[in-house]
């Protein structure tokens, strides 16, 4: 049942990403909701759940992306796993920690996508892509992940399904 719900969440995220990107965009920069989902799965659960959710949402995203199948699968899976691993190293996963880790993972993920998507990019175009797309997008994603984490943390007792890694794992 839980697997079905998680799969539905992944499908819903990709659908929202495909249909509402223009609504979510700020100055033509929109968040990669799939990456945010993978990160949150890792933060709120563990590295295994982050990996599985990341792989699932990455695969679905790859189906609707021009690049070859595998890039998002790999990157999102890795992102989810790394986000989960931080719950081992960071004693208390706070909203600030979520924001910083998501920012770092977003930058890494975005840089890898940039290199794969634009292999023949020139120096000035790389600078433009990093300064106008990669950095604002990473900041947006980090803000979004931190916001959702904060909300989930606040209402975790109401949801009753969130397992935090604060010494209870």
């Amino acid at each position: 049942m839980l697997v079905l719900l998680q799969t539905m969440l992944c499908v819903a995220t990709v659908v929202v990403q495909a249909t509402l990107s223009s609504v979510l965009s700020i100055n033509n920069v929109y968040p990669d909701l799939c990456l945010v989902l993978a990160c949150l799965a890792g933060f709120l659960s563990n590295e295994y759940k982050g990996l599985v959710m990341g792989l699932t949402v990455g695969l679905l995203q790859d189906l609707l992306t021009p690049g070859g199948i595998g890039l998002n699968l790999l990157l999102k899976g890795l992102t989810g796993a790394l986000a989960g691993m931080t719950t081992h190293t960071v004693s208390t996963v706070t909203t600030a920690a979520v924001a910083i880790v998501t920012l770092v993972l977003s930058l890494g993920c975005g840089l890898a996508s940039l290199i794969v998507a634009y292999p023949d990019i020139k120096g000035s175009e790389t600078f433009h892509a990093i300064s106008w797309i990669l950095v604002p997008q990473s900041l947006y994603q980090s803000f979004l992940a931190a916001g959702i984490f904060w909300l989930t943390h606040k209402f975790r007792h109401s949801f009753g399904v969130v397992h935090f890694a604060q010494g209870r794992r």
Partner: protein
Amino acid sequence: MPRSEHTSLPITTGLRRVLVGVFIVFLFLVLFLPRQSQEWLGQVGGPLGIILEGPLQVVASIQDSLEETWSHYIALQHVWEENQNLKLEIQNLQGEQNRLREQAIVGRDFQRLSIYQETAPMTTLAAQIIGRNVSNWYRAIVIDKGARDGIRAEMGVITDAGVVGRVVRVNSMTSVVLLLSDPNIAITGMIQASRDEGIIQGTPQGNIRMKYLPPLSPVQIGDAIVTSGLTDDFPRGLHIGQIQQVTKAATDLFQSGEVTPIVDFSKLEGVLVITSFQPPISVESPPSPETLAAP
């Protein structure tokens, strides 16, 4: 003061009765008088009427206002409910109007595409856009037609205005189309006036450039760019855009130019996928020697 002074004119009960009787007889007589003879009564009643007119008007106005207030108060209870119902109805009608307007706009777009589809010298398949920009690093759209509908990778995608892009991924029921503004797409184009050919390619900024134009090409700002038909995905002559800026450094071998696309990619709702087309110029086989030798 003696009491008798107050009753200086003593009227007996019998006299009072006589006076009342006379007055009644007088009234009857007045009623039976001819109408012309009654005018003097009107003259007497005129000043009395003026005296009564003011208070009567005041009372009448108070009565009117009371009646009006009362009736409005009672009526308002119904009006409030009616108002709420009307507001709801207006909202529903506005929603309906908006939906119809949207349908009309979408229908108009698809009708235009349909008309173009019938007249265009190629076989096309109409498709609706169901998603965009799933990844930040590609400028792409997702259409609702896939392998099941006969779509294959590398097929060209157009609208009635001009070129949109190329199919790059085909799923069973959906396909991903890379837009002309993406750096990963390149198609052959030519200047319509001078027939000089070049490569049309997107940039990471989302613009379109025409590269490898001959150095002596008389390309000018505003020149129309069309497909050259050298590749298998687009027939010759489809509109791509207009030259916006021409650049050629002294060390460059070729000219290049910024192109303003004819299609607004952000407002696309429906597209046509080119499934097959005939070359515009039929290449006939050369005459055989027997044909030439025949008388």
